[in-house]
Structures are given as C-alpha cells and as structure tokens.
C-alpha cells in the first residue's frame, strides 16, 4: 500500500509540477525579456509587439510544461526567446539609427555654419 501510495505521489508530482523543462532555460528567456524591456522595447511599437509575444509565449510554455507537454513547452520557449531577442535588437537599432541621424544633422549644421 505504501509502495502504491509512493508511486502515485511521484506520478502526481511529475504530472502537476514535475516538468523536465530546465529552469535555466526559463530563466534565460526571462533575462532576454528583461533585457529588451530595460533598453525601452515597450516604447518602440514594433519591439513592443515582439516583447508581448515573448511574454505570452513564456506563459504559454509554462502552462504547457505544467500540462506535462514538455516538448511543446521547449519549442514555445525557443519562440519566446527568439521574440525577446528580436525586440531587444529592434530597440537598439532604432536608437543607433536615431543617433546616426542626429550626428549627421550636427555635421550638416557645422557645414552650414561654415558657409
């Protein structure tokens, strides 16, 4: 009886919270999302969209893992990670592009001042 109960407990744990989804991968994705948010992805419409998709998919991956659908959870987690990275890069690129335009305008202003 004790043996049966122990087996049942193990099965329950596996089914409810005992996902094989490595916590490190979840943490990585969370870090990617945090990094994108930290550079201001929410202020860039295109980046914000990817950030939202990343967050939604992280939640979805956790739900899938809770449902024991680890393979799907891993794939969705990859998607979340990819979206977070895109959000980060779109934000940084927009900032860099604005910086270039600003500097080029400064150069032009100096040239005009000299004329």
């Amino acid at each position, binding site marked *: 009886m004790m043996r049966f109960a122990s087996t049942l407990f193990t099965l329950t744990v596996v089914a409810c919270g005992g996902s094989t989804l490595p916590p490190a991968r979840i943490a990585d994705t969370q870090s990617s999302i945090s990094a994108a948010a930290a550079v201001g992805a929410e202020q860039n419409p295109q980046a914000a969209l990817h950030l939202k998709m990343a967050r939604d998919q992280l939640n979805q991956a956790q739900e899938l893992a809770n449902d024991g659908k680890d393979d799907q959870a891993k794939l969705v987690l990859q*998607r979340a990670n990819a979206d977070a990275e895109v959000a980060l890069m779109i934000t940084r690129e927009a900032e860099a592009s604005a910086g270039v335009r600003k500097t080029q305008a400064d*150069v032009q202003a100096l040239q005009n*001042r000299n004329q």
Partner: protein
Amino acid sequence: MKLTPLLCPFTLVAAFGCAATGPSPELMDARRAYDGARTSEAATYSPDKLLSAKQALEKAESAHADDAGSFEEKSLAYVAQRKAQYATVYGMYEKDRRDQAEAQQAYRDKQDTLRRSAVQQATEAQKSLAATWDNLANARNQLAVQQTQLQSEKEARAKAEQSAAAALASLSKIAQVKEEQRGVVITLDGQVLFVTGKAELLPIARDRLNEVAKSLKELDDDKLVSIEGFTDSRGADDMNQRLSQDRANAVRDYLSSQGVKPEKLRAIGRGEANPVASNDTPEGRANNRRVEIVVQSSAQAAAGMSSARQ
C-alpha cells in the same frame, strides 16, 4: 498484430499525405525572411547571425521533412523567421554603429577645421590689429615730430621776422620806412644817392646802401625786393624813364655787390609816375626824385604778379 495488414494502407496514405503537405505558412515566412536577410546588410555586417539563422532554417526544414505540418516544424520555422529577422536588424545595427563612428569622425574633423580656421582668423586679426597699432604709434610719433618742427619753424620765423623788422626799423635813421599794402617801403632821397641827372652813386649813397644791404641780407629768402626809381616831371618822359631805370639798376647792382642775392632783386624804372608830392615846387620835386626799395613777401609778390597779369 492482426490489424497490422489493415493499418498499413492507412499508414502509407497518412505518410503520403504528410509528404505531399506543403510547407507551413511559418516555414514559408522563415524562408522569405532568410532570403531577405541574405541580401541585407547582415551579409556584410553580421555573417555569424546570418549563419545562425541559416542553421535554424535548416532545423525547421528538417522538421518539415520529418513531420510536415507538425508543431515542431511550425515552431522551429517561427524561430528561424525570428533569427533571420534578428540577423537583418543586427546587420542594420552594425551598419548604424559604423555610420555613427564615421559621422562622429566627420564631426570632429569639421570642428577641427573650424577651430583651426577660427584660430587662423584670430591670429590674422591680431596681427592686423598690432600692425594698425604700430602704424598709429608711428603716425603719432611723426605728428609729434612734425609739430615740434612746425613749432620750432614758427619760432624761428617769428624770430627772423622780429630781427628783419628790427633791421628794417633801424634803417629809419637813414631813410623813410613805411609799411604799406605792397610791403615795407624804404624811400631814399634821390639827391643823396645820385649826381644830378645821372645814375652814378654818390659816396654817401654807398654808406647808406651798405646799411640797406645789411638789413636786406637778414631777410628771409622768400622776401623779394623791388627797387623802383622815380624822377620829377622836368625833362622829357623817355629820358626820365631811362634815368629812373638806370638809377634803379645802379642801386640793384650795388646791393648785389654787397652780398644781397641778385635773384631777390628787381629793378624797375617808374619815370615820372606816382609822384608823392607836387612837381610845381622845388621841395615837391625833390621828394619825387627818389628810389623806393619795396620789401615784399613772396605771397605779396605772387599777388602782385597775378594782379599785374589781369
């Protein structure tokens, strides 16, 4: 196991069905995104990200080949699409950074050029200002020198005028000295100077003319001296004219022999003209027989010449 023969055709159909299923929309998107990335700045600026996108697409293609339309294919294709997008944006980002570095360099270069130009302009302006100050200082010095010269010339002139005036005034003992508009007029009595009717100087005349010469030598160089001979109205006009001219010449020559510069002297015979007294009485005629030595300044001489021309 008995079902196996029955299942086989279904399995085959299912397998063919799967193989015949085209790529998922996600995979199509991933392929398009990768093609876009390959021809974007990523090829130049982020080849490693492009490679990573390619590998992700290969995994998706492999998943499609293994199990077309599967969740895995769609997910891996989604990831591949995002990685291609990431590579593209990363390429743009890298290009931005290089453009930024170039623009910043251009800005610094431009600033340097402007600064150098400003420094050069300031230096030139300083030089020009310094030169202007020098010129001003020189002009002031010159002005001061000129003022000093002018002052000493003025003083010298005043002194000379004084001594000349004094010299002329001293002649009043031996002659009549008058200041008229035409200059200072020294009138010498004809009888004292000449033998009657002749242009020959008497010995006493020489003494007097020596005094006159001494005074005239003290005059400034710009003073001209006109020696004018006059007669009374007795005798023929032409004879009187000639006599007055000869007497004026005799006085001029004597003064010249006593050191008065000949270029300052001019002898004029006036004949009977301009009598100073009546020719009807012996005294008046005696007064009319005279020699006038007119000391005129160059300005007066010029004015006289000008009015003579008119």
